[in-house]
């Protein structure tokens, strides 16, 4: 398995990838071509998103937001920028 960076090194903003299991981040902005679908699933500004766990092979991630659970791949999770992660 290749190593996946934990934080989004190319961008000044942390993304969902910077969350450790159990931590919560607040959505600032969604980037990239897949924006619309993510917005429709509730990843809009101000939404609190918690990382539950990653799948056995490290990808995808299980996230909780607005009272439901959703799986996102790392590359999509990286497009969701958050304010700094906090422990819930």
């Amino acid at each position, binding site marked *: 398995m290749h190593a996946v960076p934990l934080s989004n090194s190319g961008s000044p903003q942390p993304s969902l990838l910077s969350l450790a299991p159990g931590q919560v981040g607040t959505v600032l902005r969604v980037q990239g071509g897949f924006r619309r679908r993510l917005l429709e699933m509730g990843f*809009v500004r101000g939404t609190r998103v918690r990382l539950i766990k990653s799948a056995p092979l490290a*990808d995808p991630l299980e996230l909780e937001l607005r009272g439901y659970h959703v799986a996102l791949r790392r590359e999509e999770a990286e497009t969701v920028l958050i304010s700094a992660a906090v422990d819930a």
Partner: protein
Amino acid sequence: MRSIAIAIAGNPNSGKTTLFNALTGSHQKVANWAGVTVEKKSGTHRAGDQTLQIIDLPGTYSLMARSPEEILARDFLVHERPAAVIDVVDAANLERNLLLTLQLIELRLPLIVALNMVDVARGRGQRIDAAALARRLGVPVVETVARSGKGLAELVQAAIACAQAGPNGAIAPQYGAELESAIGRIRAGLLEDSGLRALTADGGGPYPARCLALHLLQGDSALEARVASAAHNGLLALLVGQREQLEAALGEAPSEAVADQLFAQASSIGAAALDRSAEQTRTLSDRLDHFLTHRWLGIPIFLALLWSVFQLTYSAAKAPQGWIDAGFAAAAEGVRALVPLPLLQSLLVDGVIAGVGMTMTFLPQILILFFLIALMEDSGYMARVAFLMDRLMRTMGLHGKAFLSLFTGFGCNVPAILSTRTLEHRRDRMVTILVLPFMSCSARYQVYVLFCAAFFASHAATVTLSLYLISVAVALGIGRLLRRSLFPGGGAPFVLELPPYRLPTLRGLWIHTWHKARAFVQRVGTVILFGVVVVWGLYTFPRQVPLSRDFEHEIAALESAAQGAAPGRARALGRRADELRIALQQEQIEGRYAGRFGKWIEPALRPLGLDWRIGVSLIPGFVAKEITVGSMAVLYGAAASGDQVEDAGIHSRLVRKLRATGGLTPLAAYTFLVFTLLYIPCLSTVGVIQKETGSWGWAGFSILVSLALGYAVAFTVYRAGTWLGLGQ
């Protein structure tokens, strides 16, 4: 008596299908939406003197026409204008579900919200004020628990009242000053254009003008094509201009700004109606997931579950299989007694009853397998399987969602190929379609069952699991190759809801299983019956075959000699006569068309340790894999009247015959199973591949690849096994 049309809309996992099943019961039919292969389910419900025609729309998160499901749901609502729409909202997941509700309100249809699964929400400590929700939305809200039927009578009454009262929804969602002014300008443009005005409600058309303007602003390509085709250039220019202006002003595309605004409203409405103060943070579902999607345990648990599914399917089906078997054996006896013409008797007994009867004995297994698959789907476990397997699937060039299609392929490749329509990217779809024929369907499973009983009685589940693993390995390997060579490039993103685990309803499981079982029986009655009769013909003609000696005479002589002989000598003579009978049958089969064909391809099968009789049964397997088994029953004479075996069952007799006279070592039998698994997609599958890829080229490609690969893998297995000393 009047009939009114009511559509059911809602998010996936909102309990929509359970509600539909509860309302319509057994009065439902499943068809495809015109032109696409998304299932269209409709049914009727009687309420007093009124008949409701209920249409279950595909589950969608939004109506913004991105996926085939969304396009269907929206087009149906806009163009068919049902008398009322029931929006099923998951009470435990209020905010996200309300997004669709707000989009539905834009359509200006009579709308009722079914606040479903209120029991689950309450169990989690969430309290929802339905009256407050109804006030904020301006539509009736009825609390329901679809699985127990609670609130359904009130829901139906509300829907009927709503249908009579006409469009409701006190508030239209608001999108902020910039968006609103753009919507207003486009709306005015639409109403000024004589051609487009006819599309709007103001011009007598189906679309509320504001809603059409909103959808166009968000860049709905299907709608835009309609506008462009009518050459309304003025409006297109206005549209593009407004979008650019907004993007500059807001810093994001209008479609995204709209979603932002909708969610803000959904959140504020949800927050006003929802009391979360007593909410539990860790539910039973979370605790289950701790193990079921655990980093180390998740995949082993999944494999163990898969193994138990196959094991249970074997063991639980045994008894009913025996009854069906005995039933067909009795039918064969009856036909023998009633039909005097030898050729007709042979057609009915050795062809129709042996072939169809053999296939029908698998009905219990099919029922159990589909029941268990439905159980995994309805309980929410399937979504976890996609979650567990996505990384692996992606290594092989497939989308995690495709795992669901591949899993359906274990049942039948045909619906599985149809289900790839849920994949958004063409590359993902093509690779999944071409890989699917390698998934071991339930028809192939029937061959495993037969051979396991004959050769691997004590290791049936292990042998079967190994075949499924080969199936998956080949499918994924081919997927990777295709991805590297013919379909390079990235796939669609992966967003998959993991709904809470739910106890499925028996009614839902039964409806699911019943539709599959009915399709299976229909196939037995049509394609398989035809195939079996053709095989019987190949096996029966030409009637006269030159024989190497006068078997009949020699057998008669042996038997008359046995009459007066001492018991020991009589037994020896009887055995000799039986050997001659078998030799006679073999020579007869060899001389007939089937045998000639089998002999012709035998040189190709020898390296696999297989003889011509097995070869003969592979040919009709192209028509449908089930016939492989049915035709073996014919080829090995399992229903032959000359058979003196005390046990009357066709199945058990075929098992014994295969073991006794099949001439196969266990290794050759396993090689045959591997070859059967891979060698060719069945006729129906080839037809669907052609239809879904729109090309005979891809269908032919699929046949050639599977023939070559099936042979190569079977050859490797046989040679490796021989080298390891397993050939005895």
